[in-house]
C-alpha cells in the first residue's frame, strides 16, 4: 500500500518529465536519427538555450511565477543586434557591443515590467504575457518606423528600400556563431562550444552566489510570503522589481547568445516565442510556478529539445509529412505549459485542502479535550 502511494506521489510530482521521456523514447526509433546526431544537436541547443531558461529562475525565487515578460529583454537584445549589424561590428566584439547597447534598454523595460507586475500581484504570469504583447507593438513601431527615420540607421543591408524600417530577416553573418567558435573543442564525433558553456556556467555560479546574498535571501523571503517579508522590513516591491530587471537583462543576453548561434534574425517575430520555449523547458524540467532549481533548467532543456529534434523526422516517417512533426512541436510546447499549470493548480488545491483538514482537526481537538475535562 505504502509502496503504491510512493509510486503515485512520485508520478504526480514528476508527471511532466516522465511523459516527456516516454514520448521522446518512443519517437527516437521512427525518427531514424543516429544517436551521434541527436547528442550533437543537444549539445548545440544546450549552449544556445540554457542561458534564456536560466533567466527565469530569479522571478520564481521572488514568487512572481514564470516571467513571460522576458520577451521584453529579447526585444532589447534584437535592437542591440540591429545596431551592431548597422555599424558592421563583427565577431565577439559585435556580441559584446550588442549586449552593452541593449542592457540599458533591458533595464528600463524590466523596470517598467516590474512596476506593472507589482500592480498585478498574484496575476504576474498573465500580466507579463499581455505586457509582452503590448510591448511587441511598441517594438514594431520602433523598428518598422523609427529606425532609419528618427533613429539613424544607414546600412542598406538592413534597411528597407523605402529608407526607413528594418527588413523582415536580418543576416547575422558578422556575429554568426562567434561565441560558439571562440572555443570549439572536438571530443570524438562531437563539437562542444566551450565558450558558450562557460558563459552558462558563469551564470549558474552567479545564481548560486546571488541566492546567498542579502538581496537573494530577501527575494526568497518575498517569494515565500510577501506579508511576512513586508512585516520584517524587506522592501517587497523593490525586491520584486529588481528580480524582474535582472531576469530581463539575462533574457537580453540570452537572446543575443541564441541569435548568434542561429545566424539570422526574424526581426519582427524572433522574440515572440522566446519566453514560450524557455517556460516550456523549465516546466518540462520539473519546475513549478513556485519552485525551480538549476537542475530543472538543464533537465528541461535536454528533454524539450530532444523531443524537438526527433519529432519532425518521426512525424515524417510515421505520418508521411514533416509538417506534422512541426505541429507536434507547437502542440507539445503549449501542452506541457498547460499540463504543468494544471498539475500545479491541482497540487496547490490538494495542499490547501490538506491544510484545511489539518486546521479542522486542530480546532476540534482542544474543544473535545476541554469537553473531556
Amino acid at each position, binding site marked *: 500500500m505504502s509502496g503504491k502511494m510512493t509510486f503515485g506521489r512520485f508520478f504526480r510530482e514528476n508527471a511532466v518529465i516522465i511523459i516527456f521521456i516516454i514520448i521522446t523514447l518512443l519517437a527516437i526509433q521512427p525518427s531514424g536519427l543516429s544517436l551521434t546526431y541527436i547528442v550533437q544537436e543537444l549539445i548545440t541547443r544546450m549552449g544556445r*538555450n540554457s542561458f534564456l531558461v536560466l533567466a527565469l529562475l530569479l522571478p520564481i525565487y521572488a514568487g512572481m511565477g514564470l516571467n513571460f515578460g522576458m520577451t521584453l529583454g529579447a526585444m532589447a537584445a534584437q535592437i542591440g543586434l540591429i545596431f551592431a549589424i548597422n555599424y558592421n561590428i563583427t565577431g565577439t566584439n559585435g556580441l559584446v557591443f550588442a549586449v552593452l547597447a541593449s542592457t540599458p534598454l533591458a533595464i528600463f523595460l524590466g523596470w517598467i515590467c516590474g512596476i506593472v507586475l507589482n500592480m498585478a500581484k498574484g496575476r504576474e504570469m498573465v500580466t507579463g504575457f499581455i505586457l509582452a504583447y503590448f510591448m511587441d507593438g511598441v517594438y514594431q513601431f520602433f523598428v518598422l518606423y523609427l529606425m532609419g527615420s528618427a533613429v539613424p540607421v544607414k546600412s*542598406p*543591408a538592413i534597411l528597407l528600400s523605402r529608407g526607413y524600417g528594418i527588413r*523582415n*530577416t536580418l543576416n547575422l553573418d558578422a556575429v554568426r556563431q562567434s561565441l560558439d567558435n571562440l572555443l570549439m573543442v572536438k571530443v570524438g564525433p562531437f563539437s562542444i562550444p566551450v565558450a558558450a558553456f562557460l558563459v552558462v556556467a558563469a551564470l549558474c555560479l552567479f545564481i548560486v552566489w546571488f541566492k546567498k546574498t542579502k538581496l537573494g535571501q530577501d527575494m526568497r523571503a518575498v517569494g515565500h510570503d510577501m506579508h511576512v517579508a513586508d512585516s520584517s522590513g524587506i522592501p517587497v516591491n523593490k525586491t520584486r522589481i529588481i528580480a524582474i530587471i535582472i531576469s530581463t537583462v539575462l533574457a537580453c543576453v540570452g537572446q543575443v547568445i541564441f541569435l548568434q548561434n542561429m545566424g539570422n534574425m*526574424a*526581426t519582427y517575430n524572433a522574440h515572440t516565442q522566446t519566453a514560450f*520555449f524557455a517556460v516550456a523547458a523549465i516546466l518540462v524540467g520539473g519546475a513549478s510556478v513556485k519552485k525551480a532549481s538549476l537542475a530543472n533548467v538543464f533537465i528541461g532543456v535536454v528533454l524539450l529539445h530532444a523531443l*524537438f529534434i526527433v519529432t519532425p523526422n518521426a512525424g515524417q516517417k510515421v505520418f508521411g509529412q514533416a509538417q506534422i512533426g512541426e505541429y507536434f512541436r507547437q502542440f507539445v510546447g503549449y501542452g506541457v505549459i498547460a499540463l504543468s499549470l494544471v498539475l500545479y493548480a491541482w497540487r496547490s488545491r490538494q495542499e490547501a485542502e490538506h491544510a484545511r483538514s489539518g486546521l479542522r482537526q486542530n480546532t476540534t481537538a482542544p474543544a473535545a479535550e476541554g469537553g473531556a475535562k
Partner: protein
Amino acid sequence: MNGTQTIDPKLKTRRLAVRAGLLVVYVALMCVAFIFGKGHTVLLDNKDSQDGTVKAIESMTVSVNGGEPIEFMGGDRDMAKVRAQWHTIKVDINGQVVEKKFTVPLGADMVLLSIPKLLAGVEPAVVPFIPADEPPAPEEPVVDPSTTVDPAAAPAAPAAP
C-alpha cells in the same frame, strides 16, 4: 530603514564616484568593442595611379593580416575583409617580401588600398571608397505603411527554438 535616514556626505560622494566610474568603464567597453570589432572591406588595388606617376606591379602575391595569399597581375583588384583599424600587408614580388602597415579610417566601411602607392610610399595609399551605383539588395516584400499588412505575418526566418 524608514527612508528619512540621512546618508553620510562622504559616503554619498564615494557612491557617486563609484557609479560615475562604472558608467565610464561601461562606455569605454562599448568604444573598445566598436573600434576593435568594426569590420571594413579593403579593396586591394593594383592599378596605375591616375596621374601615372606610380605604375601597377606586374605580378605579386598579397596577404592581409597573415591571411591566405592572393595572386595579383597588373590592373587587378581584389577584396579583403578586415576587423579594426590597424593592419599589416605582406607583398611578395618575385620572392622579395615587403611588409607594410596601413590604417583604415574608423568611419569608412569600404576603402581602396593602392598597393603600388603603399609600396612606393606615396600618400594617400588608402582612400575611402563609395560604390557609385550600388544595386539595391534583394529584399522581402516591403511592408507598406498605408496597408494593414502585419510584418510578423510576412515570410521570415524560422524562429527555431
